[in-house]
């Protein structure tokens, strides 16, 4: 109804006027932080240790949440020593839970500020910020007849989300999982249970005793390797090896990979990055992304996945030269040419002086 709509809009404008110069939600935040429709937050409902180095957080998302697809990830904003740090975590729970909650499983990363903070400090009742689920590491609508999952370490988390959501629709599933020891296998009990029931074939590789998995060994473990639709998630060098192996076999399109973090191939030379609108000037070393360097200096920057896939962090570069930290590609922009080259700040390192229109 147009009239009720007009009335409602009018009433809302009055409420906004009452709270100017801030918005009504800012007052609401004081008592009900999950009710804010513009800032997505979640409360930790339960904390469950998985291994010595991994913990599962059960999250109750606030207003504005949209359910995830199995295999997708979310970004979690955690205040570590007063500073909000964002990291991507795969959803490890089944999709469409009736209670609206979901879980992420956090593995301690070496020197990982956020992961080690959560492992030590996550408590029931804690508030975290989040983003809507995203990512295209997904099972197709028409389920594959034969599926293979190759994972290592924390790479099991998105796959666990898939298995918990869709295992009943998959007939032939092989999981090849690498972890340092049997005790380090995240979701070890659940996976072994599924294997005992005959619902999956589980191949555990304990790298401390057996060494790292070589793609060539996979053929022995899984004879019909390239007949299977394959999903792989784990450290960058494992994924590189797999991609090469699948490409050599002409089966590249059957392999789906999810990378957690960019691999720094070459440490660049670094340079002075100038944010022209704010006037902020930052010395960015070659091994640090422009995003990280800017944030460390207090520049408020758009950010997204922090792994180079979502393009939420792009900023126009007017002049300068940057190196893609994943593959070393050089991108240049010249003011004389009137350039405004959008660069992904999360995976771009300065390779000389840069001026950004931000």
């Amino acid at each position, binding site marked *: 109804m147009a009239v009720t709509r007009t009335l409602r809009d009018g009433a809302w404008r009055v409420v906004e006027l009452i*709270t100017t110069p801030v918005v009504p939600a800012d007052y609401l935040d004081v008592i009900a932080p999950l009710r804010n429709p513009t800032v997505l937050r979640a409360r930790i409902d339960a904390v469950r240790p998985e291994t010595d180095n991994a913990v599962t957080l059960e999250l109750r998302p606030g207003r504005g949440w949209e359910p995830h697809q199995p295999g997708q990830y979310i970004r979690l904003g955690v*205040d570590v*020593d007063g*500073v909000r740090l964002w990291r991507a975590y795969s959803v490890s729970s089944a999709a469409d839970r009736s209670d609206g909650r979901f879980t992420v499983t956090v593995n301690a990363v070496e020197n990982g500020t956020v992961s080690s903070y959560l492992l030590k400090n996550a408590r029931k009742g804690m508030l975290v910020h989040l983003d809507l689920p995203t990512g295209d590491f997904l099972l197709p609508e028409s389920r594959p007849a034969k599926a293979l999952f190759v994972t290592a370490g924390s790479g099991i988390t998105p796959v666990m989300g898939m298995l918990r959501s869709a295992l009943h629709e998959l007939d032939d599933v092989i999981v090849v999982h690498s972890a340092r020891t049997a005790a380090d296998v995240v979701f070890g009990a659940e996976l072994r249970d599924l294997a005992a029931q005959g619902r999956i074939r589980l191949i555990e590789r304990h790298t401390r005793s057996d060494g790292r998995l070589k793609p060539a060994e996979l053929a022995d473990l899984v004879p019909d390797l390239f007949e299977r639709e394959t999903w792989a998630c784990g450290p960058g060098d494992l994924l590189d090896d797999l991609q090469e192996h699948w490409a050599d076999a002409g089966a590249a399109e059957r392999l789906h990979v999810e990378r957690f973090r960019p691999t720094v191939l070459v440490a660049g030379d670094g340079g002075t990055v100038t944010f022209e609108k704010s006037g902020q000037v930052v010395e960015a070393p070659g091994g640090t992304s422009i995003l990280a360097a800017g944030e460390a200096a207090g520049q408020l920057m758009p950010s997204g996945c922090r792994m180079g896939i979502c393009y939420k962090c792009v900023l126009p570069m007017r002049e300068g030269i940057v190196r893609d930290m994943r593959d070393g590609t050089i991108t240049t922009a010249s003011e004389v040419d009137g350039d405004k080259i959008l660069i992904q700040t999360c995976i771009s390192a300065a390779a000389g002086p840069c001026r950004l229109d931000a």
Partner: protein
Amino acid sequence: MTTLQRKEVNPIAHLSPEDIEQIGRELDAIRDEFLAVRGEKDAKYIRRMIAVQRRLEVGSRAVLLFSVFPPAWILGTIGLSISKILENMEIGHNILHGQYDFMRDPKIHSTTWEWDFAAPAEQWKHSHNELHHKYTNVIGRDNDLGYGIMRVDEQQKWAPAHLGQPLYNFVNACLFEYGIAAYDLELGRNLSSKRRRNNPDFRARLRQVGRKIRNQMLKDYVAHPALSVPVGLAFGNPFGAFLGTLGANVVANVVRNLWSHSVIMCGHFPNGVETFERTSITGETRGEWYLRQMLGSANISGSKLMHIMTGNLSHQIEHHLFPDLPASRYAEIAPKVRALFEKYELKYVTGPFVVQVASAWAKVFRLAFPNRKPARPIDHAVPPRKPAEVAA
């Protein structure tokens, strides 16, 4: 006060250029020390302060719905005044300085914050953070010295119009938020010629201020008074309710204006604070900049409550040295800074609120009249000296 370089007794005559650079290094070390501990405690502090202020404001405004009853009016007006002071001083001023940008919380960030004050945050940040904090107490560069309407330094030229400055200062104190908005717009300068008046940038900023003031006034003087009308109707006095709440808002805004004006006067006007010549800052080193902040600011001594209510501008010296460190740390920083003043035999200007306010007002009155002794004429044969060179 008078420009340091022309003083008969030079307060920094005993410092060599090396001393001044050493002071800079020691202050940098204090800054590093507090940067290293900045973190969760500061984040919790500002979040708690915001929550307290918002609860106090909502509570006071709820009480003012019953403004037809005198006790409710008094209680609500006191609460609202305190809430507005906290919002401007300990919260707004400090967030807009970027003291909490390190948190990377877009809700509590200098680029996104807006405050309950006539001057839009964006314009205030320019005139305050960029100009006043950079050119502190430099005559002709720092417009905070007298706000362009008063003579607060012997070196500033006297004119008969200055006879009225005690009155201007009082009016400015009552209407401080509008005074600051006009100051940020540089109204005096920008209205002076047709070309400046029609400058599109100036007109855009003028519209921005207009919008802000309109919203602020509609909120305080129309919307909230209207909200108390239903209670007034129930008790047969709707007009009294509207006017009561309107009056409460006027009082709260004026109280906040008088308070913040007084605190800010205490920052740079009391006796013992030095001013600097325009030419003295060319090629200024980091040590010299620090020294100028040390000599150009004055503190207010008092209780913890006093520090909170002044937004820790009672630690004006520490604030000017480290404007982007969280203000709630200034009390911890102060003893270290004070020890440095003593080590280098410099005067740490501080005093109780009443004494400092009186000292500042005394100067406003005294300088309304021409100098008793003519100011020492500037001898152009002597090249302008930097503080460091004064010692030589």
